[in-house]
């Protein structure tokens, strides 16, 4: 049985988290949560596929089909940055082990750390990077609020925060400060922009509700 994509998007975080948390270890759990439904996991187990050498992947990035030739071990992050032509460098490589959130992208609308996803596992999913959310000329509400509230300094964590918050506000258009903090607790900033990131998120929520 294969679950439909819509079913996967159901708001049933408690149940899904419980099911998916089982058997998936450590830092990857939160991410894997978004990636693997139990049905998919069973499917994979039933028909294991071994990839080696160099494989062609076709990724749906910001609404465009993009081809790349990568080793199967290549992460989605490194594929976007190092193998697509032209490169997609909005998502940043900061820790490469799923601890900082700077590489966050949306897979079918859900935020994941793209350093913990293999490119070969991201085919047939809609990948949205920070570039796909808006442009300098036409920013989305979160991007505009980040600029307005000075929610960035060096800006290296910014794509991750913007992506995470943009996805969260779709799920919860009217969050409290505590909910915003909870939503982006998987993202680190070193310059110290947090208070203004929170302000920007709340302002973006307010703006898009108005």
């Amino acid at each position, binding site marked *: 049985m294969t679950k439909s994509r819509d079913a996967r998007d159901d708001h049933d975080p408690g149940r899904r988290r419980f099911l998916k948390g089982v058997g998936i270890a450590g*830092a990857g759990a939160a991410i894997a949560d978004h990636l693997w439904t139990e049905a998919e996991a069973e499917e994979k187990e039933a028909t294991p596929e071994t990839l080696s050498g160099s494989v062609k992947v076709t990724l749906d990035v910001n609404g465009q089909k993009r081809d790349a030739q990568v*080793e199967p*071990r*290549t992460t989605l992050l*490194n594929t976007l*940055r*190092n193998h697509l032509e032209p*490169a997609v*460098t*909005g*998502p*940043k*490589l*900061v*820790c*490469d*082990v799923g*601890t*900082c959130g*700077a590489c966050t992208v949306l897979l079918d609308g859900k935020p994941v750390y793209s350093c913990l996803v293999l490119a070969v596992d991201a085919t047939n999913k809609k990948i949205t*990077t*920070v*570039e796909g*959310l*808006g*442009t*300098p*000329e036409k*920013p989305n509400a*979160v*991007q*505009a609020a*980040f*600029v*307005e509230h*000075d929610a*960035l*300094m*060096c*800006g*290296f*964590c*910014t794509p991750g925060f*913007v992506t995470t918050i943009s996805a969260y506000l779709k799920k919860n258009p009217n969050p409290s400060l505590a909910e915003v*903090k*909870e939503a*982006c*607790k998987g*993202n*680190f*900033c*070193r*310059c*110290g*922009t*947090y*208070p*203004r*990131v*929170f302000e920007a998120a709340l302002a973006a929520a307010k703006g898009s509700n108005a």
Partner: protein
Amino acid sequence: MQQQPQAQPTPKPKKKIRVPKVVNGVEQMVEVEVDEDAGPGWGPNDKHTLLNHRYTRVDGPLKATGVARYTYDQRLPGMLYARVLRCPHAHARVTKLDTDAALKIPGVKAIIPAPLTEVRFAGAPIAAVAATTPEIAGDALRAIKVTYEVLPHVVHAHHAIRPEAPKVVAEENNLQEKGKNGDPQKADAAFSTADAVVEGEYITARVHHTCLETHGMVVDYRGGDTATIYASTQGTFTIHEDAAKELGLTTSAVTTTVEHMGGGFGSKFGLGLEGMLACRLSKQTKTPVKLMLTRYDEFVMAGNRSGSWQKLKAGVKNDGKIVALQARQYRLGGLGGGSQAGQPYIYSMGDTYREVYALHTNEDSSIAMRAPGHPQASFAVESLVDELAWKIKMDPVEFRIKNLRDEVYHRQLRRGAQEIGWSKRNPVAGGNAGPLKRGMGCAVGTWGGGGNNQCKVDVTISRDGSVLVAVGTQDLGTGTRTYTRAIVAEELGLTVKDVQERIGNSKLGNANPSGGSTTAPSLSPSVKDAAIKARMLMAERVAPLLGNPKPEEVVFAGGKVSAKGQSLSWQQAVAALPAGGITSHGEWRADLQARGIHGVCFAEVEVDVETGHVKPIKMVHIQDGGLPLNRLTMESQINGGMIQSLGMALWEGRVMDEHLGMQLNPGFGDYKLPGCLEMPELVPIIDDDDKREAVIGIAEGCIIPAVGALVNAVFNATGVRVRETPVTPDKILMGLMNPNLLSRG
């Protein structure tokens, strides 16, 4: 031919002043000559139209949409990816480096040895690999076989100080005397007049810069006569000379660019070992090479703040006057000398005596980190001051006012007390009921923040009305780009959008490296000077259209150029310019900047005395800094200072394994950075009572006092005086179980 005597212009009167210059992130004082009367000033701080207002960053939209291109984002045709092999031993000699198997891996293009044969810290580079993908470069690292002769090491300061400890550097003792200050006998005698004495040992762990963009560069050399270096650096002009030597090119054949950079905090100056390796790989392969450190690399050798071990003893009279201080500081800089400001730091402590030592361990050298040496000194002295106040039962705010000469601190302390709600504070340490105990603390800080005469700025106004300001400086995320534009825009009566800037390129006008809060006070006077000159040049050109006023009578405001009751739109005015437009050149002016800042921090925390968990509730930082160039970005910097201090106070610290000699927490999973969930309410306050019409750098100032304020708040909450950062739950619980345990003195 006989020379005709020519009328010489009268030379402008000059004066000599001393200014800070930053070398590798550390300030040194040098003498420079400046004009005595250099031209118009900034004017009163409350009379600006753009500066001292809030305006958004010009690169904000690029950064928020992922368009901003950082060094890490550069990808050139055919570019190779480099990685560095690191030594797992704290002290070892490389006896054999076998790269045969690694070189056979398809995609591996070059392997070069690092210049060291004897390494003195775990994580030192042994070799570097260039390959077609970073994944293959990683394979090559695993395939290199290194044979080491492992030598004895010592990584903990209290072991390194023992006479029998292994020597960190063969020729030297681990303990190096660096200086003495004051009269030991006099200080000794002064203790006899004291009513109470506090003695303690204060320790700060080494903390890491953890710039989110790691150190590194892309060296674009393809075998020709020129090269371009894309660098994540705090100094556009600190790289091309050394890079040219490595590449065998002339200095002017190498261009450095730094368009956007992902944080530095004092750690990114010069070519660095990684840059040298990248140059060598690029030279050997005649191919562009990108060498960005991994996060592990970044922890083990890309920088840390010097640790400190401070033995302090102070005496106080019952009236609250501190009369004596004896201090011994060990600077814990690993292989380096470390850094620390001198005690008694800002306070007047009567007769003082200080001994300074460097204590070496087998760790990478500490390097400059935002306010080098100051948070360490401030933490210890502010803890000591708090202990003295507690001992004679005096309010810590009043006690500080009594022992601080500079009245700026008095007003800042009173304001801070009001902002945090000091009157609600329980004066009895640990006196609040229940397991969740609240407490408040405070501390003060200082910094120089003056500039120097290194920045050369050009402003060009074109006949199409566009305005360009160009200088090679770099924007670390501090808002340099934005205020550079704003200064020109304000001078010409335009908006920020009407001006473009070009920065971050070593072919543009020289600029100082960004360290020690010297960028704004070095750059903004040169920008202002160029802008004033551009305004005057343009005024001369448009004067005939406005009834021939004197150039200084022409008013540039609101996008109009006016004089004698007549007004031109900007477009009408620029039509009077020559085809090539006009370009002015700006130089530094000492009178447009100043030196010497004050800041205070107040913190409130809640400590769970059952678990030792500290929850920061609120922090207030009040900072003066002359003329705020941009209130929005200045407040962001103050927030950043508070948050980085919060990390140092409560969570961050390198942990070394004594036996392995390695760092145990070289990653974000184990090295705890401040995150979203820990954020308290933060209140950044610009001290507008500072009326100096001068630009002063504030970045360092706002990272200094918060550590002391937080630790003092923990004491007020719990009655436990933790004298070692980070103040983790284990230390608090230990103190609650046995209050004497943590009193190392």
